[in-house]
């Protein structure tokens, strides 16, 4: 055995021998290194505003529960999502408790129910009476096959923000608006060509066929949906076809009333500030973002319930959603559950969250907190909290199916194709567009059903 090593040493320079020796030693050290077990619980948050709001609560929890101390860490949304996926799929380390966004959570519901990485909290919610305390529609994104996998963080009702300065300068009174038809008719004089090039430079609504978020808000508001109560896909529902046909008449043709500025980018904000649109969809959390990102609009903008699709119809929709979930594999699920309850049921936290972000709590008993009745100078002195709470019970349910994102995309694609069809054939009425809307939705339905059918982990009984 001496011969090979001797020949090796003859070949190697002293420097190379040192490098190889260091590499071998460090490899052994890393291999043998023991990772110290974490002291207490770990809590991951993705939203910076939530992180700031909880800064007060975590030290208080640690003082009162020295036996189950908690460390809070903020991760970016994509980082949290990737870590969750890795943790659930391959067992890499995860936090004990985390706040999860709606789209992230749905991915965990793709496989068998027993493989969902979140702790099933259905029985706990019912046994402790929490289920009845929380706004019912807020549970919908966190349910899969009848089980609930987290405590809802929010309600996220949607309102319409409008440029009160422009509307009032034109002498228009919006209090009589009940339906979208009223809104477009009353505000039509504001859709103007400001630079004389023959094209409007100001539109009545920030919406377009390429904006799937806005499409979804309007679809939910109008009673459209992707799945039935058993979570079977129903894209081809006639209600959906009628909604898409109506939307196309808003987005193109002689009665066009909208333009798509996108959502939440610097360029979007600049155009909103410029007055390119009169009305924008705003959930409670985006209302909070506007205060931070668009200070130039302070006192110039007001909120109103969404105009309904027909007289007496729903005056709100829903946008986004977050829950507090517990890692099923955590050794401290009971402590994590207690922490989650303390964080979400505390009146102080609910008030602090609203002040910081304008997000209203889904806990109904906290809706009478004085903070929700405070006038907001940014929104021209309106009591925005109360307006949002008044709409909360009417928020439409959101699907929790892992195929909801795909359904949204297919519905969005259908809208784009229908708009192209309208322009190609110069058909700009709902009635004229209905047959094509139905045909396109049948194709989308077929694609979605085929994709769901490919999932061999879900039996027919379990299928989402």
């Amino acid at each position, binding site marked *: 055995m001496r011969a090979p090593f001797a020949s*090796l040493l003859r070949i190697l320079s002293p420097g190379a021998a040192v490098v190889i020796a260091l590499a071998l030693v460090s490899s052994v050290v890393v291999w043998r290194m023991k990772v110290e077990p974490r002291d207490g619980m770990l809590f991951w948050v993705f939203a910076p505003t939530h992180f700031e709001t909880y800064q007060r609560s975590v030290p208080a929890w640690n003082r009162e529960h020295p036996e189950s101390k908690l460390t809070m860490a903020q991760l970016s949304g994509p980082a949290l999502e990737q870590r969750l996926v890795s943790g659930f799929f*391959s067992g890499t380390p995860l936090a004990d408790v985390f706040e999860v966004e709606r789209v992230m959570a749905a991915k965990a519901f793709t*496989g068998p129910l027993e*493989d969902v990485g979140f702790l099933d909290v259905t029985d706990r919610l019912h046994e402790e009476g929490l289920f009845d305390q929380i706004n019912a529609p807020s549970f919908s994104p966190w349910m899969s096959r009848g089980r609930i996998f987290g405590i809802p963080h929010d309600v996220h009702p949607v309102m319409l923000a409008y440029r009160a300065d422009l509307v009032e300068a034109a002498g228009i009174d919006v209090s009589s608006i009940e339906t979208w038809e009223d809104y477009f008719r009353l505000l039509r004089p504001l859709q103007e060509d400001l630079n004389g090039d023959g*094209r409007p430079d100001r539109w009545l609504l920030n919406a377009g066929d390429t904006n799937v978020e806005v499409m979804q808000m309007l679809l939910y508001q109008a009673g459209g949906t992707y799945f039935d109560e058993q979570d079977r896909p129903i894209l081809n529902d006639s209600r959906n076809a009628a909604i898409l046909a109506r939307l196309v008449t808003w987005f193109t043709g002689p009665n066009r009333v909208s333009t*798509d500025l996108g959502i939440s980018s610097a360029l979007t904000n600049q155009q909103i500030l410029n007055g390119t649109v009169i009305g924008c969809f705003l959930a409670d959390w985006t209302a909070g973002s506007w205060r931070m990102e668009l200070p130039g609009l302070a006192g110039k903008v007001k909120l109103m319930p969404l105009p309904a699709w027909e007289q007496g119809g729903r005056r709100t929709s829903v946008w986004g959603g977050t829950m507090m979930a517990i890692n099923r594999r955590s050794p401290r699920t009971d402590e994590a559950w207690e922490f989650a309850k303390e964080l979400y049921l505390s009146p102080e936290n609910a008030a602090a969250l609203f002040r910081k972000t304008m997000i209203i709590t889904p806990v109904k008993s906290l809706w009478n907190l004085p903070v929700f009745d405070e006038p907001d100078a940014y929104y021209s002195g309106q009591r925005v909290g109360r307006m949002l709470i008044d709409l909360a019970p009417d928020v439409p349910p959101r699907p929790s199916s892992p195929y909801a994102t795909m359904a949204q995309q297919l519905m969005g*694609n259908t809208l784009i194709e229908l708009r192209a069809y309208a322009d190609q054939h110069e058909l700009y009425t709902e009635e004229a567009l209905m047959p094509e809307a139905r045909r396109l939705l049948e194709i989308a339905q077929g694609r979605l059903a085929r994709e769901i059918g490919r999932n*061999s*982990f879900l039996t027919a009984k379990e299928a989402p």
Partner: protein
Amino acid sequence: MNMPVATRRWNWAPLFFVGPFLLIFGVFILWPMVSSLLLAFQQTFGPETTRWVGFKNFAYLVNDPRFWKAVSNTSIFTLGSLLIQLPVALGLALLLNRPKMVGRSWFRLIFFSPVLVGLPFVAILFSPIFEKRIGLLNVSLNMLTGGAWDPEFAWLQVYVMPALILAALWMYAGFNMIYFLAALQNVPKELTEAAEMDGCNAWQRFWHVTLPEIRPIAGFVTLLSIIGSFQIFELSLLLLNGTSGPSDRGLTIVMYLYQTGFIAGDLGYASAVGWVLAIFLMGIALIHRRLSRGQEED
């Protein structure tokens, strides 16, 4: 006469030198390739929960409209790259190969520099340029056409592939120009001078002398462009804010692979997509090799 008996000694030196390569190749290339091939025949919910499905992933892929949309988009991008980017690169190289041109070293640096900044920079730069109404491109075109150009022209919503081709042109035209410049500098001057003395005009000299001489490099650049274009991912992903754009107009094959494997968690189907792409690119490379060999024999 007694011959010395050769002592049989094991020579470790070759193994020592080849060892690191074999180790790295085995761990990071061979093993993942074998794993992904096996995965392509399974359905997965992450790597832990898997089910053997045979050829079902491939069968599904054949009838998957999103996959074909990705193939169609990627092919359009590749064609755009070949038909626009390469002629532009060759044109720039011809221009900057002229010995009497003032400041040609600076121009070479300027045209090459976009490739130094990287794709994320290009995406961030071009995103506001393509914006509707207030984007530089629409505003400029509107001004240049005396108001005829619609400032609402939706580059990143409707005309996604042309937008990607434009952004890639800015980035890679200078990069490919360097290859063509190197090739042009190797064209023997005697040939072009002889052609000139024979009365050939500039176009004839280019067509009958320069082009045949740079054909091997042109073929190589074409192959690189095809392979690179079929692997387009980051530019599209970043320009479209992590999505595949409205109606999947910006969906490319690698983006589809990424969405399926790392967003939806279906590693099996993503592996099937990856293998189809790999086999296709291998086919392109083989065709190129066959054509190159034919040219050499000619």
